[in-house]
């Protein structure tokens, strides 16, 4: 019965995503290719001072991305430091320096890692003017970069990639804002709170005292999922009944976090003039998603390990209303996109269950990945795949009519290297620097032994991939982790973006080479299979050693 319900639930998710794939994908393609500006958009361009019809080189596009992100980090840092004097602070003091630094980077990079506890750290002003705004714009930045890369494939002999400010504004106002507004109201119907009441003190049935929290949660929650952000209003994120009150809001949240990334392959197919290319990418994403979901669900349903066996089921850190499968479906959706929201505590998962979210992130979050970042990540892997296939048969590789030459493959390789280096070096330094090691072991790590290593590996994996979920027992609000994870988030977001835009520039400048009999067709199952294989093998070769020391050791010993 439980298995049948699980299959029905994932079938419902698949059905909704299938139905939305074409209309949403086509709408996004239209959004980013339409020549006409809407009336209010013209007003916005005048206010911010850009000519919306001017095209940008990849360097200018990158300058836009970086300057907007830098200004965002600085302002978000400032708002947190000034919390005490801002209105609606709920009496909370200024956020300390290290934590403000970490949180500012976290939300601007679309990571939404939370070193703090939302319940007791942030007032409404920081949540709204700081975090909610970044939930929208960091997502729109990701989509813009992905669209710029797609334009690189779509254009020929072009020196430009579009206009970052136009893509940003359209991404926010034509896509994210309308969807988030509808989603927020649906969430309120389900019971998510939306008020400015602060805490309501009540006397419970048995005469105790309870402070029921309030807050503008639904508006925040909608864009948190839709923008694959994941930063919760409350400490326990989507496990909190006021963020995720029912089993159906749970499924709705999963739809929100997956719908844009899963529809972007359609946008890609439309813009490069072949919907089949989009289906090939979609197939790889969906295949990896379903395989990963199956593994996690089986591990948690089996409930291996001393504590789950003793309890009679892996229910530690899970909510009754979601059950095992509502938890594993959410965890898969959240970590295989870049959302990083949690509705159950991954730290308390079975050893092999806890391994799966790590693997989802280590795949580079490509199945389907974050909004925008998932698409550009998998297109980089597609380039690596045609390169490897080209080596096998001894031909110059090409993808979508673009030659993958020295410059292209160098940029793709640099892209692929960034994340593993950040994860492995960050983890290694945490245990290699003498003073830091003591601090990590005595202050940060919550669960002793092997599981403690997993907590640190998970943290750096999450930060470098801009996911934001955690083995939350880890106390990350320390000078070392605030700084190191902050650096991992920053480099993990913007170095890849530099390489993607440079690559987009190189591709756009190329002419299109005609397909010949020797060209590898990239819309067939053969290519999709190769791409999935490359994705898994690159990940396995990179991370297998560290995983054997952590979750694999715990699960198999």
């Amino acid at each position, binding site marked *: 019965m439980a298995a049948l*319900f699980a299959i*029905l*639930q994932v079938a419902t998710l698949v059905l909704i995503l299938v139905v939305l794939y074409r209309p949403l994908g086509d709408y996004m393609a239209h959004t980013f290719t339409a020549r006409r500006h809407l009336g209010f958009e013209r007003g916005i361009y005048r206010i*911010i*001072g850009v000519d919306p019809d001017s095209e940008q080189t990849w360097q200018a596009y990158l*300058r*836009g991305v970086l*300057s*907007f992100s830098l200004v965002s980090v600085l*302002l978000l840092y400032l708002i947190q430091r000034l919390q005490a004097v801002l209105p609606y602070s709920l009496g909370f003091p200024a956020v300390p320096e290290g934590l403000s630094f970490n949180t500012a980077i976290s939300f601007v990079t679309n990571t939404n890692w939370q070193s703090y506890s939302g319940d007791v750290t942030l007032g409404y002003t920081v949540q*709204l*003017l*700081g975090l909610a*705004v970044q939930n929208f714009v960091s997502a729109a930045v990701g989509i813009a970069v992905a669209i710029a890369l797609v334009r690189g494939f779509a254009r020929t002999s072009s020196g430009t990639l579009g206009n970052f*400010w136009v893509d940003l504004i359209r991404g926010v106002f034509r896509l994210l804002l309308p969807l988030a507004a509808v989603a927020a109201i649906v969430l*309120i*119907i*389900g019971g998510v*709170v939306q008020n400015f009441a602060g805490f*309501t003190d009540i006397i*419970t*049935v*048995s005469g*105790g005292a*309870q*402070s*029921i929290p309030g807050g*503008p949660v639904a508006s*925040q929650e909608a864009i948190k999922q839709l923008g694959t952000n994941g930063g919760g209003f409350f*400490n*326990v994120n989507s*496990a*909190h*009944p*006021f963020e995720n*009150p*029912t089993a*159906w809001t*749970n*499924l709705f949240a999963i739809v929100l976090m997956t719908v844009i990334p899963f529809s972007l392959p359609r946008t890609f197919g439309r813009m490069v003039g072949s919907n089949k290319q989009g289906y090939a990418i979609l197939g790889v994403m969906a295949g990896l998603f379903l395989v990963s979901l199956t593994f996690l669900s089986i591990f948690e349903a089996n409930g291996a390990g*001393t*504590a789950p066996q*003793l*309890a*009679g*089921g892996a*229910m*530690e850190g899970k*909510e*009754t*209303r*979601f*059950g095992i499968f*509502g938890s594993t479906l959410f965890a898969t959706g959240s970590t295989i996109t870049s959302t990083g929201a949690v509705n159950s505590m991954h730290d*308390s998962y079975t050893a092999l269950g806890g391994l799966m979210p790590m693997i989802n992130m280590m795949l580079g979050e490509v199945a389907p990945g974050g909004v925008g970042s998932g698409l550009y990540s998998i297109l980089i892997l597609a380039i690596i795949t045609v390169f490897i296939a080209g080596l096998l048969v001894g031909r110059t590789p090409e993808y979508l009519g673009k030659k993958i030459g020295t410059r292209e493959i160098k940029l793709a390789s640099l892209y692929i290297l960034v994340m593993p280096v950040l994860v492995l070096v960050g983890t290694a330094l945490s245990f290699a620097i003498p003073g830091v090691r003591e601090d990590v072991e005595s202050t940060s790590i*919550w669960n002793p032994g*092997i599981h403690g290593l997993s907590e640190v590996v998970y943290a750096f994996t999450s930060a470098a991939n801009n996911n934001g979920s955690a083995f*939350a*027992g880890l106390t990350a609000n320390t000078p070392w982790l605030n700084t190191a994870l902050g650096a991992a988030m920053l480099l993990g977001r913007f170095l890849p973006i530099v390489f993607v835009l440079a690559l987009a520039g190189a591709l756009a400048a190329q002419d299109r080479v005609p397909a010949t009999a020797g060209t590898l067709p990239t819309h067939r199952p053969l290519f999709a299979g190769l791409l999935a294989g490359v994705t898994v093998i690159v990940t396995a070769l990179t991370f297998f050693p560290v995983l054997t020391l952590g979750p694999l050791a*715990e699960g198999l010993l």
Partner: protein
Amino acid sequence: MASTRTAVRTYGVAARALLLFIVVLGIGYTAAITGIGQLALPAQANGSLVTNQDGDTVGSSLIGQSFADADGNPLPEYFQPRPSAAGDGYDAGASSGSNYGPENADLIAAIEDRRTQIAEFNGVSPEEIPADAVTASASGLDPHISPAYALLQVDRVAEARGIPVDEVRTLVEGNIQSPDLGYLGDPTVNVLQLNLALDATRG
């Protein structure tokens, strides 16, 4: 120094764009959603608060609460919720899971303790106790327990209140919520609503 001018110009655009987003998204969007929520869906938007038969607000139907005396001992006349890691238990201002890993010795000891205690408290054998009864939820505020754990408490509650067992069992069965749409999630029993219904039958 054309490049410096370009850079300064770009930062100007970035700053103006961000300020515009703060006004429209941070303030405008939130205010609009709050307005709609407060006007059209006030009950949900304000936390699904519930009142007892005297009309006093006694909690939220979505947030679990403890049914214990001042010393933290469970009250036998009320159905008991799951263990909670939020503050000292069901502290709605400090949501939290335990975050204990599957091999954590403290968790293993806690599960053994809870099992013994619940078996004794309810006069049942330890093997009958379902997993949700001995594990802390993710939020520490889980308002639900499994139907199995609710039914296991029926005899104890009936005895403590001096009312027929069948009456309590009927009440529990009437409070079992089936999964959303028939298949999303697990069947649950809302502990606060069940206990309120119980108090209402008494009076």
